[in-house]
């Protein structure tokens, strides 16, 4: 029987951390480097440059004037956020080498982006979390699912059937635990460790279904937990809590948010999704 760790080892070479993310990361951590160095590294990859400028000029950032150069984009977005952005912008293409027959990539990334948008919106509301980091966490929160679907398709299908057979009383991650002994949070968390992603991302990915397990980034993890269910509401165009996985009451407490925030968050994500989908999944 495999473990979450085995699966992540299995996909080495099939999915790799985006090169531009590694380079920018190295520079961000190097005290001797300047934002000019970072801009230069970002400029090495023409398709990244193009998409970075499109993002910088999109409604996502709402800058008052046009952002025409990478240097200006880096200056405005900030050197530490540019690293998250590099990861967010490349992760969809990184996972193209890991196809599966259970969920279309379009549908998978649509949910991830709705969660990312919602997480960013909620982070801005509460004011004590980094909205850009939460955007990336939202985008990556289900990444373990793509690995499970690709490596263990039969068991993954069995888990999804179990969810439907239970009239959704059993959630996907619970079915995975029953069938596999671990869930997509565990696998995503392992991948985050393998990739040396920041601990905040690792914890949000690993614990978004079980926020009691989070230790150091409890508020952020709780926020991703809420954003996940709100993203499903946005997808289903429903405000009925019975249509989506239950909200853990502890998540409201940890974030200081109340259910009043749900409807505006759903509307905001729905309004932004089409543009963001073009920006982040590389579709024109």
């Amino acid at each position, binding site marked *: 029987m495999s473990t979450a760790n085995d699966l992540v080892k299995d996909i080495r070479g099939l999915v790799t951390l985006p090169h531009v993310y590694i380079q920018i990361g190295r520079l961000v951590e190097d005290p001797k480097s300047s934002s000019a160095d970072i801009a230069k590294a970002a400029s090495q990859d023409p398709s990244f440059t193009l998409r970075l400028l499109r993002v910088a000029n999109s409604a996502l950032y709402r800058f008052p004037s046009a952002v025409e150069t990478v240097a200006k984009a880096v200056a405005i977005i900030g050197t530490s956020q540019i690293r998250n952005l590099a990861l967010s912008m490349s992760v969809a293409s990184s996972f193209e080498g890991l196809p599966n027959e259970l*969920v*279309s990539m379009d*549908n998978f990334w649509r*949910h991830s982006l709705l969660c990312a948008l919602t997480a960013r919106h909620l982070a801005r509301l509460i004011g004590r979390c980094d909205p850009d980091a939460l955007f990336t966490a939202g985008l990556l929160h289900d990444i373990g699912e793509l690995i499970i679907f690709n490596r263990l398709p039969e068991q993954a299908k069995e888990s999804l059937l179990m969810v*439907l057979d239970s*009239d959704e*009383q059993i959630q996907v991650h619970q079915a995975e635990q029953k069938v596999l002994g671990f869930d997509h949070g565990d696998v995503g968390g392992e991948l985050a460790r393998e990739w040396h992603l920041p601990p905040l991302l690792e914890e949000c990915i690993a614990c978004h279904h079980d926020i009691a397990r989070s230790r150091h980034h409890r508020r952020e993890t709780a926020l991703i937990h809420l954003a996940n269910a709100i993203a499903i509401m946005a997808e289903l165009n429903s405000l009925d809590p019975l249509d989506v996985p239950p909200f853990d009451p502890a998540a409201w407490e940890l974030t200081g948010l109340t259910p009043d925030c749900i409807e505006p968050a759903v509307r905001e994500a729905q309004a932004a999704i089409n543009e963001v989908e073009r920006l982040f999944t590389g579709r024109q």
Partner: protein
Amino acid sequence: MRPPLPPALQGFEHVRRTWNDSQEFYSARILPGEYYVTRSDEAISTTLGSCIAACIRDRVSGIGGMNHFMLPASTGAESDSWKAAGLGIGTRYGNFAMEHLINGILRNGGLRQNLEVKIFGGGRILANMTDVGMRNIRFVREYLKMENLRLVAEDVGDTYPRMAIYFPASGKARVKRLRSLHNNVISIQEKRYVESIIEKPVAGDIELF
């Protein structure tokens, strides 16, 4: 406290029933091509992609049930006059599904003049697919009109798969939209069902009441 499992009506003993813990009811779960009729206070549930579930009950006695079907795509073998009338050979499967359910209700004491109907499903859950969901919706609406059956509620079409839970005793139905994560598993199930009915053509008689 969980009450004892109510007895299943004759012919429906094979349908799996489970206890719903959070909402405290028994639910009989039907798959594509199946149907279930009950006189007890229990639910019937199913998961729908482009298939249709018709929920029918005698609104006086509360005897009722649910089916789950779809029309297979036209094979091209049917006559032109059928095609012109929009009645491909596939509609036979729809007729069978509807008549089986209605006859099951009448056989167990339901009265035709008391029947009321709810219909769910017919979603377009896969992109780039001919809209078989719409074809199923059109069929069932036409069927109800021809049979003069009263449609009291529907939730059909759109792009979502659905979970339908129906309580024949009260006539209440709950339809839950399902996220796209479930699209492929549901359409694999439906595809397998369509292949099985194409391999095994329907034959023989329907008892009419």
